[in-house]
């Protein structure tokens, strides 16, 4: 059973990302949306833990939320961008979704 985890909070003022990374199992997927997209940037204090997750999980980020926040550059290598229909595809490809709010 594979799970999709979504994170919609900035990692800097909420522990949703940290808890997600602790719980997410190998082979599962993580999608950053809304203020969660700030975790996808290279060079932050969370970059190492996101890279660690990339070793055995897929990590995605929602492009429209990156665009809105001016965060298009310096994406961590290996993170894939998706649009809204890609978001829908991810929810259908996984057995269940956990939203880390």
């Amino acid at each position: 059973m594979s799970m999709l985890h979504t994170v919609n909070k900035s990692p800097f003022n909420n522990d949703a990302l940290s808890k997600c990374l602790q719980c997410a199992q190998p082979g599962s997927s993580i999608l950053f949306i809304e203020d969660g997209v700030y975790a996808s940037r290279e060079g932050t204090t969370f970059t190492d833990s996101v890279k660690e997750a990339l070793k055995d999980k897929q990590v995605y980020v929602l492009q429209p939320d990156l665009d809105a926040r001016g965060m298009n550059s310096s994406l961590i290598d290996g993170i894939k961008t998706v649009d809204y229909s890609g978001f829908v595809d991810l929810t259908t490809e996984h057995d269940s979704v956990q939203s880390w709010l």
Partner: protein
Amino acid sequence: MSDAEQITKKFMYINRKAPYGTIYAWESLEVVLIAAAFDQDISLAFIDDGVYQLTKGQKTEAIGLKNFSATYRALGDYDIQKIYVEKESLETRGLTLDDLQHLVYEDEDDDYAEKDSIKLVSADELGKIMEEQNVVLSF
């Protein structure tokens, strides 16, 4: 009114939230623009996730929200000349001043020369500036 003397106070607006995810950033900007009409000594501080409000290249069409980032460039026209950005907050987020919009004001005491509004400060320096204020408003 017999006493028409203007009392000027020092107001600081402290911004600690990212734009778009919550309404705080937009609300703060609206209050700042209103307050600017009252001719007070205004400064803005951007710390923690607040620094994200000032990033370049925001494009909000696809999320269906108003892009208010250009409004920060109008602050100089409202005579808001002091915009403090906390250094450590940028660093922990992998950002530099180059990732932020270039904000300027015209200095009327210096032949309207264009000067940078953004001043990079440490948390300690910012704390001292906070203590000098008459009024501090938090967002």
